[in-house]
């Protein structure tokens, strides 16, 4: 795997100006956990669907409130409906949560780089997700399962804070019942009723069934979780240039013009959010860069 899959983006549809917002209608609202929800959107402007690559994001605009970057969490092989999953953490996502079926949401995108699902063909794939980090990785799982025969062993390691924080429960149930996908869950803290694993997500790496020398790792979660995860993957022998992470920074434009999402030499909205660890390792550990 020589290179990161960079900027595999589709040109924004509708208008030439990438700052132009396209209205979408909310078809369904799904409550994923007490503070996390998914929105399923249909285009209003007559465009047919919304093509994207797993890992890409859209800028979502709530009328009069503002705009935020949210990763696409739906199925990339079925792009009639656009699905986003987000956590309520600020003014805009709070307003988004109050939207109802039939309300309008503005969309710009898709923007950014994507997970190397095509380059990973022929390899084992280990997907490590922490918390809301499963959202941008879900399209990867959908994609791989749609092309399952092309991959070796596929492992999903997913950690959350508590059992109540586990997202996409229906999907997880389905995935756990499959023989061609190893799904391991763990939570950081739990009380009595929980019968699953307890411990940070990195504890799953040591015993996950994959061949570290023939494997592509895709990691998404809080930065500190990704730091520990990469260390643990390296302990098992996964190569740097086959390890991929997804970064988060302040994004105001999504197209590399506003400057806010700079991470040293790169713009997270353009070269990221998905990076090959080898390309980012020098800046990844720099404080306040």
């Amino acid at each position, binding site marked *: 795997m020589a290179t990161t899959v960079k900027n595999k983006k589709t040109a924004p549809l509708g208008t030439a100006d990438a700052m132009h917002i396209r209205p979408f209608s909310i078809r369904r609202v799904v409550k994923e956990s007490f503070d996390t929800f998914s929105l399923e959107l249909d285009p209003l402007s007559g465009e047919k669907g919304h093509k994207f690559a797993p890992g890409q994001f859209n800028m979502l605009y709530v009328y*009069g409130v503002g705009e935020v970057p949210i990763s696409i969490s739906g199925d990339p092989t079925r792009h009639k409906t656009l699905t986003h999953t987000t956590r309520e953490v*600020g003014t805009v996502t709070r307003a988004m949560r109050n939207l109802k079926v039939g309300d309008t949401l503005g969309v710009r995108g898709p923007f950014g780089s994507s997970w190397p699902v095509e380059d990973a063909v022929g390899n084992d794939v280990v997907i490590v997700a922490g918390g809301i980090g499963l959202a941008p990785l879900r399209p990867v799982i959908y994609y791989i399962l749609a092309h399952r025969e092309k991959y070796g062993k596929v492992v999903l390691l997913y950690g959350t804070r508590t059992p109540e924080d586990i997202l996409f429960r229906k999907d997880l149930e389905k995935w756990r019942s499959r023989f061609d996908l190893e799904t391991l869950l763990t939570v950081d803290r739990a009380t009595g009723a929980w019968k699953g694993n307890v411990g940070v997500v990195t504890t799953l790496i040591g015993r996950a069934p994959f061949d570290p020398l023939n494997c592509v790792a895709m990691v998404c979660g809080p930065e500190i979780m990704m730091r520990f995860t990469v260390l643990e993957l390296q302990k098992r022998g996964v190569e740097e240039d086959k390890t991929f992470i997804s970064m988060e920074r302040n994004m105001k434009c999504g197209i590399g013009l506003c400057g806010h999402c700079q991470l040293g030499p790169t713009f997270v909205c353009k070269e990221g959010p998905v990076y090959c660890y080898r390309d980012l390792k020098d800046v990844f550990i720099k404080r306040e860069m």
Partner: protein
Amino acid sequence: MTTTKKPKLAVWKFASCDGCQLSLLDCEDELLAIAEAVHIANFPEASRAVEKGPYDVSLVEGSITTPHDAERIHKIRRISKYLITIGACATAGGIQALRNFKDVNDFISIVYAHPEYIETLNKSTPIADHVFVDFELRGCPINKYQLLEVVNALLNGRKPNIPPYSVCIECKRKGNVCVMVASGTPCLGPVTQAGCGALCPSYNRGCFGCFGPKETPNTVSLAAQFEKLDVTRDDIVRIFRGFNAFAEPFRKESEAYEK
């Protein structure tokens, strides 16, 4: 904004000059739109009629200077869903906080014929020292567009565009020439929060710091530069001791030069 009941708004006055309330009245062009969007239930500068609470929004002007006020603000907090303080008095103690640097009893005996009737606290303090404040709107007086912006943002459920950065940023956006660099005029702009539209530098004067300290203010560096511009130590104390004299960073800097 939903078409449900209009939010009830109240304006309250503590130790102050009423100038900030007047900023609301000064919104001539927008006042009708405001009156349409909110129900003004209590506004001493505009009407004597007072409607009972609770209120959706309380705008509080003035600082706490008497034991009675210290009690009254708690009552207001209890009947207000959102409490927004407006102006330097309410957010930093105001110009009357200059007394905080001296013994208040000395002032009382000088100013009043019968000091024994005067019941006052020995410090003038901001509202946030007494109750939880949802939003602080700075300025002496506040800027009417900022006030409109806060009300507007609240009504539309968005974050108000009230940036905590320096006056310099809005000053340069406006195309002003830096008075300190080009004319050697001491200016508090680099340590003062934006919001006034860089009013004084637009008229070739140094910023007086009406909007109080900005985020991460480096008053030490600015004061050192004032000295290079031959501003005396006494004058540096005076510059920092304006309408926001008791705001922590300004207070500390003025005290450093008082010694």
